[in-house]
């Protein structure tokens, strides 16, 4: 069995973090959390996760700002936006900012499974 995939969840919602953590742990992932975009950049640098699920609307720094800062630090970072505000403008902004995918809430466990299974084996 390979090493556990490391996943960073960045969302200000306790419910979203709990639900996502429950699902990811069932998928044998190692999960870390951040409650806003500013904390997410620090946690990313410390934990070097394989993938990040990033909300957009958050206090302090939003998800698009965190996307930019993380991509500046690591151009290869895999960041999936996970947001309730999936407007065309936000979607285009996120994809241009280097997000590899954009999942509109409410997400399904199948969507998360697909992201995890597409990660390269370690």
């Amino acid at each position: 069995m390979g090493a556990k995939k490391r996943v960073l969840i960045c969302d200000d919602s306790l419910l979203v973090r709990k639900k996502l953590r429950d699902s990811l742990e069932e998928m044998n992932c190692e999960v870390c959390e951040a409650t806003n975009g500013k904390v997410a950049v620090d946690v990313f640098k410390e934990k070097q996760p394989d993938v990040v699920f990033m909300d957009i609307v958050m206090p302090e720094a939003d998800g698009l700002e965190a996307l930019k800062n993380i991509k500046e630090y690591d151009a290869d970072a895999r960041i999936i936006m996970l947001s309730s505000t999936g407007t065309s403008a936000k979607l285009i902004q996120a994809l241009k900012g280097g997000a590899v995918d954009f999942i509109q809430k409410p997400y399904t466990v199948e969507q998360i499974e697909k992201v995890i299974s597409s990660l390269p084996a370690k």
Partner: protein
Amino acid sequence: MFSQYFGQYLLNKGILTSEKLTDVLAFERSVHVKLGILAINAGMMSAAQVEEVHELQRKKDKRFGEIAMERGYLTFAQLEDLLQQQGSRQLSLSQAIIDRGYMTLGELEAALDSYKKESRLSTEQLDAMEAVDFDKLVRSFLDFSAAGGLSETYYDYVALILRNILRFLNEVPVISHSVPLEGKVEGWTVVQDIVGEIDLATALAADDTAFLEIARRYSQENLNEIDELAKDSVAEFLNLVNGIYCVNASDKGLELNLEPQSMTSSPEFSHVIGYIVPIDLPFGKIKLVVGQPNK
């Protein structure tokens, strides 16, 4: 709403790449939705029947609707219904995908079918949504005329909340007459502002019992008290609905953004001019606040 969600679905399923989706999203505003797409989406015709009518159109100088009726694929009433829908932008993304050649009609039909099955709406919920026209209901029951140019925004917003109460809390909501928002709103209250080309103040308030039940139903967690998770669950419900509102507005060319939500008990709304809409559910009453920040 449909267009945005369906776009996300196609991207997430790997049916369209992000480059193709970005292209069709930019292109969709200029497209004219054709009857064939509308008929497939409504389940009135199959992709094969639409292809057949298109083929016949190339040979005959007749319109799509005429041929479809001749072949017995559509009734006059169905055709009228489709023509009425043609004015809306709901399926412009689907049309843009076809026009760009990214999918065939058959592939689109299959994707629409899977999308509807997977979008968490049960048949009963779909039936109830079709049975209760919330857009009509709010306009016949509520009076936002004093809000002037914002009245339509408020009607649309309340109808959206009602549809999502049905979708996520699984109850048919009953509304009472709205009252102007004055001073304090009693109970646990989650507040969220929508900002951009229009500014909206929104809030949901409920007493302990109703608040906890909303939290339980939305989170599908076993919650027994109003703790942080319960509060966050109700906040996330409002956030989700407001996100859908922004997507709907984006479909109409209005760019809006959400502010982070806040949770308080019995807040004052002295900075907002708007309305309280009482909503009755089998497990209790909710108060919906919609208004405009008084700058």
